[in-house]
């Protein structure tokens, strides 16, 4: 009997665990270790953050699902990785520390034959002084954060209704943040709710971003075909900003946040400030605080993980100039670069470099979005690795790895605002592939047929459909596996 341990129960880890159990059945063990007791459909946190959904609508407890599927669940934080064993346990294992109230603080070892690191991001609010729910801004990264954001936003609407002018800033809180699409979506939800509340005229809404220009979204922008013309995601996005009266600050690295004032630097080296009454700024991400040791207890963390804390996999990590970047730089199998039978998926794998052109300010500050790898790509990676591991367990252990490079994978981003059948609207974008491949698509790096943007009610319906369908899938309801990642 083989044992597969999955660290993390987000989109990638949960997808991997369900597919592993579906293929391995009761003959082998699948164990999930996650510090969170609940699964969260994070894309819908945006709606929680403006008070249009409750946390219960975007989360559910993991334990009953895993009990029903025969997956062992430890609500715990993985702290140490011992891929060659240790003096106390000769088999490969992970050290964990429980976070569930019944065993809080207790420690244990979990041995494995195969390990999937799907630990997701550490929300690195500490990278920017004054950033985050414990300081001067709000976040929608977790359902709990989104609830607090909603309460603060409701207070702002009350002030606006009493005639008090308010400044709202939505964006990212560091020069190396990712997930600009989520910030963009929340920004337009805020704008929509202000209009619905009849107070839009008194509110100044500003989108603050590290993107070089609007429409970059951390993927270097896109080229769309519309009405017989090619247009850029920059122009397409600017049109939306103009239509809704939203201001924007681009090329920004937030240096620090004081109560009511954001201090930021821009690519030209200028230092500026932005006053706010309400600010939702996403944090930069780091890898989880997971250390690795060899059998003698020597720290090998630097071999296994990049300095950012993300796991090194089968990518090309050699430093090369932007002009030499290639689709081949990106990982295909997500197997650890140094450890046998270990995989890193979702946000937990270390990307070889950004997708957007890297830029530094006149003062040497890096102001470039990190590559997005959430949502659809995360789910695909989880399933791909689950297929590889199950093939190897069910075969002779040498089955070739399944492949899913972000250079041969598409992604959809549906930024929806409003709720209800007729009241919403959305900016729906898809791109194929996520990482531009100029060898295959010399003109723009992406398939013109599969890279497009569209605004309208239909995208809003799709966003709600995705909410329902992916929660159904995550709950492992009948035929869940037929729903694509």
């Amino acid at each position, binding site marked *: 009997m083989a044992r597969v341990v999955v660290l993390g129960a987000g989109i990638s880890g949960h997808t991997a665990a369900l597919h592993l159990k579906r293929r391995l059945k009761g003959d082998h063990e699948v164990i999930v270790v996650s510090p969170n007791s609940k699964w969260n459909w994070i894309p819908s946190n945006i709606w929680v953050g403006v008070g249009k959904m409750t946390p219960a609508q975007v989360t559910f407890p993991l334990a009953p699902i895993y009990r029903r599927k025969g997956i062992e669940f430890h609500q715990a934080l993985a702290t140490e990785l011992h891929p060659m064993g240790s003096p106390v346990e000769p088999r490969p294992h992970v050290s964990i520390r429980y976070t569930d109230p019944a065993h809080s603080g207790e420690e244990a070892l979990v041995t494995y034959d195969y390990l999937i690191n799907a630990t997701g991001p550490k929300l690195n609010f500490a990278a920017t002084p004054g950033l985050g729910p414990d300081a001067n801004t709000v976040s929608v990264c977790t359902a709990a954060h989104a609830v607090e954001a909603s309460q603060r936003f409701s207070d702002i609407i009350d002030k606006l209704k009493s005639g008090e002018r308010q400044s709202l800033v939505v964006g990212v809180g560091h020069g190396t943040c990712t997930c600009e699409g989520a910030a963009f979506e929340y920004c337009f939800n805020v704008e929509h709710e202000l209009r619905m509340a009849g107070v839009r005229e008194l509110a100044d809404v500003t989108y603050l971003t590290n993107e070089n*220009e*609007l429409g970059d979204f951390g993927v270097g922008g896109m080229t769309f075909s519309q009405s017989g013309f090619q247009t850029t995601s*920059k*122009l397409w996005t*600017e*049109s939306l*900003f*103009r*239509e809704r009266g939203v*201001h*924007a*600050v*681009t*090329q*920004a690295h937030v240096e620090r946040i004081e109560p009511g004032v954001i201090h930021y630097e*821009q*690519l*030209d080296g200028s230092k500026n400030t932005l006053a706010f009454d309400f600010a939702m700024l996403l944090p930069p991400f780091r890898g989880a605080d997971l250390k690795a040791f060899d059998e003698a207890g020597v720290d090998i963390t630097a071999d296994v993980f990049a300095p950012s804390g993300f796991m090194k996999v089968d990518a090309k990590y050699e430093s090369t100039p932007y002009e030499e970047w290639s689709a081949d730089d990106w990982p295909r199998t997500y197997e650890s670069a140094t450890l046998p039978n270990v995989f890193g998926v979702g946000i937990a794998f270390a990307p070889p470099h950004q997708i957007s052109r890297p830029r530094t300010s006149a003062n040497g500050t890096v102001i470039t979005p990190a590559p997005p790898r959430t949502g*659809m790509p995360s789910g*695909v990676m989880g*399933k*791909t690795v689950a297929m590889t591991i199950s093939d190897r367990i069910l075969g002779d252990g040498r089955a070739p790895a*399944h*492949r*899913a*490079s972000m250079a*041969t*994978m*598409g992604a*959809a981003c549906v930024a929806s605002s409003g709720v209800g059948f*007729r009241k919403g*609207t959305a900016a*729906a974008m*898809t791109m*194929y*592939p996520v990482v531009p491949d100029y060898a295959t698509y010399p003109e723009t790096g992406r*398939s013109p047929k*599969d890279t*497009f943007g*569209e*605004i*309208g*009610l*239909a*995208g809003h*319906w*799709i966003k709600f459909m995705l909410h329902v369908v992916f929660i159904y899938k995550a709950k492992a309801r009948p035929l869940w596996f037929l729903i*694509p*990642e």
Partner: protein
Amino acid sequence: MDNTNADIAKAPLPTASTLRRRQNLVVQAWRFAALNFRFLTMITKGDH
């Protein structure tokens, strides 16, 4: 140099008919079907 707000001010605005089309139930029902088809085509295109 951040010229973003100057660029926004010059960006094309949708016409009234475009805005109506974006909210028209019949048009959007068709777009819903078309978008789903394009999403599925894109999803199945990868080598995974």
